[in-house]
């Protein structure tokens, strides 16, 4: 479009100079006469009309194209501007809305944090209670085991001590008759044994 317009302007300039030169020649020749020379004036008007007609003829198409292109560009720019404006307005509205909701969001965040904190506290408390309960059970179990072991040890000590005493008493007080009687009891029991119990 620009190339066409440039060419058209070159042609227009040529026409301009073509139309002005005869007039200039006329003015140089006898322009100082006070009487109007209607022929020359008509010739000048004709020249001007030819110049204007040539201009219209030459510039019509590129000018139309230029203007059409210019209009399309302007329309696009206007549309783009409108779109950007719409987006900016939407963003502005969103920001306004967010600004207006900021307090509410802050309160919500605080409330959420508080709630999570409460839950975490409850979880920690529950875990601590479970750990404490497990430790109590373990300690109780160990204490019971220890007590059983001690009872058993005590019983063993008492029984061994009692048997040692009993043995000492037996050694001191068993008479020959007692030993004979025990040997006789043994023999009597031996006599009652059944055959299959012995495997030599």
């Amino acid at each position, binding site marked *: 479009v620009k190339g066409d317009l440039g060419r058209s302007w070159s042609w227009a300039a040529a026409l301009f100079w073509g139309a002005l030169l005869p007039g200039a020649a006329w003015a140089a020749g006898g322009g100082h006469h006070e009487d109007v020379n209607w022929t020359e004036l008509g010739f000048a008007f004709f020249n001007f009309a030819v110049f204007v007609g040539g201009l219209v003829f030459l510039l019509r198409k590129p000018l139309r194209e230029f203007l059409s292109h210019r209009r399309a560009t302007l329309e696009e720019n206007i549309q783009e501007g409108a779109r950007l404006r719409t987006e900016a307005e939407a963003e502005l509205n969103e920001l306004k809305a967010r600004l207006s909701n900021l307090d509410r969001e802050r309160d919500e965040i605080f409330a959420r944090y508080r709630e999570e904190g409460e839950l975490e506290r409850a979880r920690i408390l529950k875990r601590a209670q479970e750990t404490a309960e497990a430790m109590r059970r373990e300690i109780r179990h160990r204490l019971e085991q220890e007590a059983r072991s001690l009872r*058993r040890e005590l019983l063993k000590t008492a*029984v061994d001590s009692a048997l040692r005493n009993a043995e000492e008493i037996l050694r001191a007080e068993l008479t020959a008759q007692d*030993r004979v009687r*025990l040997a*006789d*009891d043994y*023999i009597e029991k031996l006599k009652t044994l059944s055959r299959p*119990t*012995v495997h030599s």
Partner: protein
Amino acid sequence: MPEGSLARRYAKAFLEITTRAGVVDPVGKDLLQLAEIFEQSRELRVALENPAIDRASRKAVLAEVLRRQGANPETRRLVEVLVDRDRLGVLRQIAQAYGSLADERAGRVRAEVISAERLDEARLGQIQRALERVTGKRVVIEHGEDPALLAGVVSRIGSWVYDGSLRSQMAQLRDTLLAE
């Protein structure tokens, strides 16, 4: 070859010889006595097992020991075989295996009867008859004493034990009290 198996082979061969000679039990007794002396006298063991001392000398020492022991002549011949073959180290096992084989062949078993104090012959006889009735075999009693039993008697035939000692009754009482 394991010592048990080796001892049993010698014992079997000895028993064949002593059976033919009719001296099974005296030789068995001699072998046990000699094993006892051999174990108790370190000097005798060193002298009889020392390869630096020639066999004739070792046999002479052994003959003197057996003479003092009053052993059967057959015993001396058998023990000399052990000297020749350097088998005196397993004399105890041979004596025991010989005793077992002799008992088995004679249809008898040996019963070890232990009491806190020595039992009289009458009671030992009663125990012997009771054990013969239980085993269905002729029983040879080997009586021993162990004051640790406190009182009562323990009879042992092979792996079978019949324990009537006061010591074992106290042990049972202890187990019962501790089991509760």
